[in-house]
């Protein structure tokens, strides 16, 4: 009889779930190291690496200069040569600087070498708008979903922050792990010692019957708020937390929309070629035409200005309004 350690549910902050997953994996695997700005004694910009420098030391938790292209390249190269780095990019906006090593080398490595080499690197990055302005607010995960060879995940709860990080650190290729500024204050129950959350696994976090809302990251909370508003109007919304953007869990999504008949996709990023565009297209390929609408940020850079930021980002009211329109048979156009 195998002795699997018992799973203990423990309430903790989102950042603690990340730190715990990383700590457990670093204890189990000496090849894991962290590269980033302020990851060492500072413990990470959001304290998501708290205590790791103290336990594992400067060799495995390394503060790097601000040079995202080189930092990602070093992480990818080290992965290709046998290590398992986490490259921490504090703002997702700055991932763009590391696109060449991540995409042109890391994601293509297995293919271009005919299977000889692979780069098991986790690029962990924080997306989302929170008053910090046009270059510190973006959610660009949709840009990465189409890269062959790259996996993209986004947790919305501390439990999944834990489970997805474990999966990412055990992957055999590059993974982009997206968290969100507005998720760090969130606390939740985490199954410590529990199973990792696999790639390609979405979760129905609120069952419903009148429409399906697919979403990810912080917008899952917005969707749940909207679902509460809709309940008062007698509309039952099923909310699916995608968790994995590449690969998508189409089985769960298609089964849900097959039941509800209506699809609302929600993201904080842009809807043009967004996550929702891909979900809608694939659902229609599976089921034929369905009533759908996409909700996302307005097509403008997200300013640090409080009024303008709020005007651009989806909130529960906007989502509920879009969902109500979806109930009527009118033809819908998403707002570009």
């Amino acid at each position, binding site marked *: 009889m195998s002795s699997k350690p018992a799973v203990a549910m423990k*309430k903790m*902050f*989102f*950042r603690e779930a990340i730190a715990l997953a990383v700590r457990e994996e670093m204890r189990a695997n000496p090849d894991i190291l962290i590269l980033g700005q302020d990851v060492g004694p500072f413990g990470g910009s*959001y*304290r998501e690496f708290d205590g790791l420098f103290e336990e594992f030391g400067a060799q495995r938790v390394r503060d790097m200069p601000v040079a995202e292209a080189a930092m990602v390249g070093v992480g990818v190269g080290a992965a290709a040569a046998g290590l398992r780095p986490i490259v921490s990019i504090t703002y997702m906006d700055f991932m763009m600087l590391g696109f060449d090593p991540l995409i042109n080398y890391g994601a293509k490595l297995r293919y271009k070498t005919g299977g000889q080499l692979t780069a098991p690197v986790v690029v962990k990055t924080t997306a989302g708008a929170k008053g910090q302005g046009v270059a510190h607010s973006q959610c660009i995960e949709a840009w990465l979903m189409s890269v062959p060879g790259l996996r993209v995940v986004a947790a919305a709860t501390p439990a999944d922050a834990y489970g997805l990080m474990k999966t990412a650190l055990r992957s055999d290729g590059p993974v982009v792990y997206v968290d969100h500024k507005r998720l*760090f*204050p*969130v*606390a939740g129950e985490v199954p410590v010692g529990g199973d990792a959350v696999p790639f390609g696994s979405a979760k129905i976090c609120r069952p419903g019957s009148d429409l399906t809302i697919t979403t990810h990251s912080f917008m899952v909370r917005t969707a749940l708020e909207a679902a509460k508003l809709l309940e008062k109007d007698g509309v039952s919304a099923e909310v699916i937390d995608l968790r994995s953007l590449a690969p998508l869990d189409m089985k769960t999504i298609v089964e849900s929309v097959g039941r509800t008949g209506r699809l609302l996709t929600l993201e904080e990023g842009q809807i043009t070629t967004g996550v929702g565009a891909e979900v809608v297209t694939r659902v229609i390929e599976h089921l034929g035409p369905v009533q759908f609408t996409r909700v996302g940020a307005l097509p403008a850079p997200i300013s640090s200005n409080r009024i303008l930021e709020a005007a651009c980002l989806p909130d529960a009211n906007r989502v509920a309004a879009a969902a109500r329109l979806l109930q009527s048979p009118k033809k819908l156009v998403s707002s570009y």
Partner: protein
Amino acid sequence: MLYKISVPQVADVEEIRVLEWHREAGEAVEKGDLLVELETHKAIVEVRAGQKGYLRKILAESGNWQAIGLPLAVLSEGENDPVPEDAQALTDLPVDFEIT
């Protein structure tokens, strides 16, 4: 007169974890005494008594969680004032809180 201590309104925080009580139920407290340390997602908040009194009942023990605005403990001016069941209706004790 009875008071409650509530979880302070800290910007951008929804709930906190109670880290450590520095006073026990039944103890006298002076103005400025450190009553409890709370943990937010970012930092530790030290809650200090804004006036003297007696700590009568702790509502959220160390290691437990509490939402912003909800009560953590009941205090009274008199050592033996009767403590009510429901603390939510009580006046908030003036406190100083420091984020470290």
